[in-house]
């Protein structure tokens, strides 16, 4: 194995030599133009006035309200996702019914659908002339609804493969020893699914915190009421207040990165523990 590996790198050095320096240079330039420079500029802008200026921008009441709304809505949405995402994954793996294949394929629709269309679509059923008589437009419920829509696939898609691999023998053994279905679920199924659910939840959270397109039309962007963090940033850019926009951007970015970093740490811990 080790020898093969070394030979592999030897071969690679050969492949690499050809156009590789030029190739690496181009990759580096592309990444710099697209990601490195912009992120550096964002961090620089948010810290030009020092910590005081940063804090002043972030503690602006409208900004605080927007950040709070985004974080609270994201936490609620993610909790709902954890439950319904797991239930949906369960049904897609363990249940059989006509049209299951189509339902399974449609789960990814929120990923494929442009976010602005997601907003229009939700307004068509839950807007002012809703055929169901439910009008959530311009309310905080609309923020939650839009976030639920765009983050739907995360938990489903991370739980599904684990559920497919889950050995039924354990559940059967527990059941035959007299465990109730609820006990089997609590003691055997959920502990196995937990890492996948947590992964899905973390990804949903990161997505929800930054979501913009689906919120624009349905929430009405009312300051202190339905204005989410990303929408606040957009408004500040329109007002040419780039310092405020950059400061709030950094807060949202840190929230998303913190959750993703915790996830990585948790998964690494867990895999070490299991091994």
């Amino acid at each position, binding site marked *: 194995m080790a020898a093969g590996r070394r030979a592999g790198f030897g071969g*690679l050095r050969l492949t690499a*030599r050809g156009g590789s320096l030029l190739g690496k240079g*181009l990759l580096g330039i592309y990444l710099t133009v*697209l*990601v490195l420079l*912009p992120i550096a500029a964002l961090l620089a802008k948010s810290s030009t006035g020092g910590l005081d200026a940063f804090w002043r921008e972030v503690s602006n009441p409208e900004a605080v309200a927007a950040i709070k709304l985004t974080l609270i809505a994201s936490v609620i949405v993610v909790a709902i996702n954890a439950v319904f995402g797991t239930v949906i994954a369960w049904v*897609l793996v363990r249940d059989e019914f006509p049209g299951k294949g189509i339902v399974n394929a449609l789960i990814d629709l929120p990923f494929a659908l*442009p976010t602005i269309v997601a907003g229009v679509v939700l307004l068509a059923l839950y807007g002012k002339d809703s055929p169901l008589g439910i009008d959530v437009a311009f309310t905080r419920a609309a923020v939650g609804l839009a976030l639920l829509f765009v983050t739907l696939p995360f938990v489903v898609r991370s739980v599904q493969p684990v559920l497919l691999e889950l050995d039924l023998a354990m559940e059967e053994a527990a059941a035959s020893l007299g465990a109730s279905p609820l006990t089997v679920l609590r003691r055997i199924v959920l502990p196995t699914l937990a890492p996948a659910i947590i992964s899905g939840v973390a990804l949903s959270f990161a997505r929800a915190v930054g979501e913009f397109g689906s919120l624009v039309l349905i929430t009405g962007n009312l300051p202190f009421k339905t204005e989410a963090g990303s929408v606040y940033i*957009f408004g500040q850019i329109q007002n040419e207040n780039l310092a405020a926009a950059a400061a709030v951007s950094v807060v949202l970015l840190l929230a998303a990165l913190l959750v993703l970093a915790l996830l990585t740490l948790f998964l690494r811990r867990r895999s070490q523990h299991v091994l």
Partner: protein
Amino acid sequence: MSSSGEGALPIPGAPSARRSSTRSAARPPAAAGARAARRRQLGVRAIALGYLALLLLGPVAMIFYRTFEHGISPVLNAATTPSATHAFWLSLEIVAIAVPLNTIFGIGMALLLERGRFWGKAALGVLIDLPFAISPVVVGLSLVLVYGKTGWLGDWLAEQGIQVIFSVPGMVLATAVVSLPFVVRETMPVLRELGVDAEQAAETLGASPWQTFLRITLPGIRWGVVYGVVLTTARALGEFGAVSIVSGRIEEQTQTLPLFVQDRFENFDSTGAYTAAVVLALLALGTLLAMNLLTRITRRRTEA
């Protein structure tokens, strides 16, 4: 490798065989228990499908109904207005530039991350994934801070006579950033699976690195790349937030199809908004279809 699999039964039959056996094993205890299990199963199914119907299927079906409520001619009229067709073609133009760029970059970066060994590789991986963790609005803002009038490169770009922000180059940049990770992330696992044996053999037999790449590596990873391209295209076509900021949203100039949807909606032209939304929704459904077909192709290939 192939001989050892014979005793363990071929993969396709295995899951269903196992499932049916467990079902019959679960039945014996008592008829009442089985009935309760069946009730539970139906209950859980109703919850899952009900949730999906309310959140996903209902709203999407509703938009198709709303669009074609008054027949097809208003839809055709709305779809053929100059600003609608301009927005459509501009979206395609941006996709036609950003997607190939990201594809080439994605393959190269996947090779580097998967085959290379260098300091800071983990950090590079995080950097590649960053666009998924960043709000599209923040992407737009960051680009303005570099390429905008008051941005880092603003003066220099003005001297060269290049306008990036509020014109197509900026929109291409924004689109490329938000769809950057897809090809990299879809290509890396297939590259790992492919291994280096065949490449080494080709090299030993005297193939140049370029020949090896074109004849061995690329055919081996093509379905992974194609899957990544499908995801990139869907994301690029639908990008709203980042493009909204860098475009200036000028009708018939820098208005893409998603921006057109917003513009029509806010101007109370619901037919126009719904029509464009349905076009984008159909493209999204086409994306799902392509994803499904590709998954089926690769599954058949790995099972064969």
